[in-house]
């Protein structure tokens, strides 16, 4: 930066604050995050103007925080937009259907104001076939469609995308509920269409025309990611791989068949040809005999997602132990402590581990031991999601000491209120150790038997915590008060089945405006408090959910009425108009 510039008189260059917008726009393109850009935009009006006009990527974390039209007006040059809808707990069935989160208003506004839009990503929203048709018809440069945990559309909508988006590079469908209309949507990609780089239809239930798929894969020479669904049999997988040996990411779909040496050999050859394969996933149904066919790719794998795979036992462990460069591992608890011990000793580059629960009524041998081992031996481990049946404070303290670099720690002990199984104490000490040691912790989920003490620790120490999930924990209002009066960086707070009432909510009302959203269900809230909160904080939308079969106008109910589900979020758009009958905005 020119030190003498501003002091120089009669200098040839204009003073820095009079530089043309294009210069600032170029400067802002180097800012790494949207938060940085937002901060820059707040400096002065010329920076605001320059920044917003050059913003190409917009992430709307809550689709109701602003109206689509506002977003379009403020950021007219957006080329990639990402919008999220329902609250996170909708993933677990806590939000009844028809709650909202429709993508249509966003697509309609974008069609109007962002004709050059190239990328759209929706998460937990309702996307209809009409939406997909509108996308295909409105954006001539459309390249990337990503739908995560959405519902409302069918293969007819996919057909519209295939037929209409001539420049499509990515079609990424993750865990959506897609209705099967038996339309051969894959066939609607024209023969001249060769631009596909990512194709993920793993969540699709129905059949897919294999021949059409093979032709598509053959002509799309740039295909890097291919994730198949369960309908693709193993022998077809082998031939697909042979047509696309350049794949970097592969989802195998259903991986089970009778053992035939010829098929094994074919798979082995096919995988042998995939020198660039780095990420592997699929629903593997316990076919240990085929696992050795993968051995040739193990060394190169950086990501392995076996969280839908019921494969277990020594074959699984042998397979994983060969994946020495693994950075991301998702498995089911069928891996057991023994398997995790092997992971600990083999996968020294591991950064993220997720262990999902399988059969509850089985006597799985996954305990705290597995997590302790991995956290002790994997120095780069920073993100954990772990479902298990038992835990001790000592284990958590050890984990905290070994891995102060956690950024995401989510522990789910399957039975609520489970104490330390050795001492029978609450797990306060353990989780306190985690938040005290892991200074960079951004996301935390706690479980087990917990008192208000753990919240005191979290509130005091978790300065960088952005998202906190609490269930079946705490003794009193104090718990919630600790959180809301501490946790400087808190953005999302979701609570279920805790004895938290009105007082801490009202006492910390201002905090809620610094957060993105708050979810509280099955707590001890009353309608009166919610009304007060809404009156006090006009920029918050306070939504109450009753059970869907019973809708009674809120006005008639007294203040003492209990509130079953509360969802509060900050918004500049005012109360939304698409609430179903069981949602009421106070």
């Amino acid at each position, binding site marked *: 930066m020119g030190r003498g510039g501003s002091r120089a008189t009669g200098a040839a260059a204009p003073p820095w604050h009079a530089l043309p917008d294009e210069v600032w726009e170029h400067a802002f393109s180097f800012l790494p995050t949207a938060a940085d850009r937002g901060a820059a935009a707040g400096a002065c009006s010329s920076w605001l103007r320059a920044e917003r006009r050059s913003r190409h990527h917009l992430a709307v974390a809550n689709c109701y925080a602003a109206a689509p039209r506002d977003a379009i007006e403020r950021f007219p040059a957006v080329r990639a937009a990402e919008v999220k809808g329902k609250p996170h707990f909708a993933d*677990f069935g806590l939000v009844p259907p028809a709650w909202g989160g429709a993508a249509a208003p966003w697509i309609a506004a974008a069609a109007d104001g962002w004709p050059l839009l190239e990328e759209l990503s929706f998460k937990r929203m309702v996307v209809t076939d009409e939406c997909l048709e509108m996308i295909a018809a409105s954006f001539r440069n459309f390249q990337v469609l990503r739908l995560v945990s959405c519902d409302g559309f069918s293969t007819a909508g996919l057909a519209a995308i295939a037929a209409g988006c001539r420049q499509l590079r990515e079609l990424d469908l993750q865990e959506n509920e897609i209705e099967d209309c038996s339309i051969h949507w894959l066939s609607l990609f024209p023969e001249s269409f060769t631009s596909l780089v990512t194709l993920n239809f793993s969540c699709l239930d129905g059949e897919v025309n294999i021949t059409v798929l093979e032709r598509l894969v053959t002509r799309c020479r740039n295909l890097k990611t291919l994730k198949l669904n369960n309908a693709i049999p193993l022998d077809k997988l082998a031939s697909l791989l042979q047509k696309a040996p350049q794949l970097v990411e592969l989802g195998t779909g259903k991986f089970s068949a009778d053992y035939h040496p010829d098929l094994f050999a074919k798979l082995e050859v096919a995988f042998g040809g995939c020198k660039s394969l780095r990420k592997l996933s699929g629903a593997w149904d*316990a076919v240990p005999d085929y696992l050795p066919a993968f051995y040739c790719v193990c060394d190169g794998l950086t990501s392995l997602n076996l969280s839908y795979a*019921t494969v277990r036992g020594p074959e699984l462990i042998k397979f994983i132990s060969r994946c020495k460069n693994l950075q991301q591992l998702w498995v089911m608890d069928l891996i057991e402590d023994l398997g995790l011990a092997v992971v600990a000793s083999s996968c020294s580059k591991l950064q993220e581990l997720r262990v999902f629960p399988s059969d509850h009524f089985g006597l799985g041998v996954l305990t705290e031991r597995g997590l302790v081992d991995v956290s002790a031996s994997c120095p780069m481990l920073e993100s954990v999601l772990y479902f298990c049946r038992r835990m001790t404070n000592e284990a958590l303290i050890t984990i905290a000491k070994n891995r102060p670099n956690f950024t995401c720690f989510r522990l789910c002990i399957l*039975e609520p209120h489970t104490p330390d199984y050795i001492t029978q104490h609450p797990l306060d000490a353990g989780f306190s150790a985690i938040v005290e040691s892991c200074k960079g912790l951004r996301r935390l989920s706690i479980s087990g038997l917990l008192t208000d003490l753990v919240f005191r620790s979290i509130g005091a120490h978790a300065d960088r915590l952005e998202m906190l999930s609490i269930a079946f924990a705490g003794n009193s209002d104090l718990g919630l008060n600790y959180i809301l009066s501490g946790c400087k960086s808190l953005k999302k707070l979701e609570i279920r*089945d*805790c*004895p938290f009432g009105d007082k801490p909510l009202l006492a910390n009302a201002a905090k809620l405006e610094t957060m993105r959203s708050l979810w509280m269900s099955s707590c001890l809230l009353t309608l009166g408090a919610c009304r007060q909160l809404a009156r006090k904080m006009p920029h918050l939308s306070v939504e109450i959910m009753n059970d*869907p*079969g019973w809708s009674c106008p809120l006005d008639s109910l007294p203040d003492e009425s*209990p509130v079953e589900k509360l969802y509060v979020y900050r918004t500049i758009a005012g109360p939304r108009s698409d609430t179903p009958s069981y949602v009421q905005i106070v």
Partner: protein
Amino acid sequence: MGEAAESKKSRGHHSWMREPGDHHQHQDEEEKTLELSLGLPGGGGGGGGGWRAACRDKGKLSVAAATATDSSLLSPGYSTLVSHSSQGKAKGSPGAAHLPATGNALASNNNSSQTRSPSTPVIGWPPVRSFRRNLATSSKTSLELQNGKKAPKAEEIKRAPFIKINMDGIPIGRKIDLNAFDSYEKLSLAVDRLFRGLLAAQQAPLAAEAKVCPQEVAISGLLDGTGKYTLVYEDYEGDRVLVGDVPWGMFVSSVKRLRVLKTSDLSSSVSTSFHLPSYMLNLLLSPPYSEIVDFLSSMQLIASGRKRTAAEC
């Protein structure tokens, strides 16, 4: 379309973790208990969700609550036993004394929090996406399809083709391909075929020398303890277990080797599903325990033990 998606999800919830046969029955029982429990003292501590709202609403019985669109309430989905001790935790709150949805009203019928039986479901717990549950359901169903039924080819669980099988009293073992059978009956017949001749030759060496055909006796009763021999297996953990307890598919994937033991030798070397020391077996011989024992042995759970003790007396 949203509705279709939801009901598909709930179907997944219904069959998650359940034997295909009994989930309907259980669901009906759950519905009945739900209706009965609505007015239980101790507050309407329900499983969360709309269920609790209906409870607290001054007894207004909303049928809609019992058939909550949040369908995982009725379908057990993931069920966890919620411990009773948590019910005391709630602090005073205005209005109806409602507790955090920990102790379910149903839990009072099922206070054995140590058993793993599927009861007291808690909605949306553990926090796993429904998508993940549905997929796991389909693989569990494929496991269950193995049990004596013709499973679609793509879903059969395959393991190493041949495993060793040895018989008491016969020095030479055989190898058997489990993939050739789809039920315990067929396995039993095959074992009979494999060893019948060998057994006869073993027991009548003189007959062989005299060039007379040894008398072959069918080896029967391998599975129910009624025969002279009983079929056991060793699993990957090294335990010896009676053949026949688990669904066929599960057996095929966990068996390491087979053994045909003399039924009279069983007590010392076999672990059954229930471990019963002999003093307990003697206790069980007297009524009313003997009725229970008869019932259990008819389910092939303690057959051999009972017979042995009877012989001792």
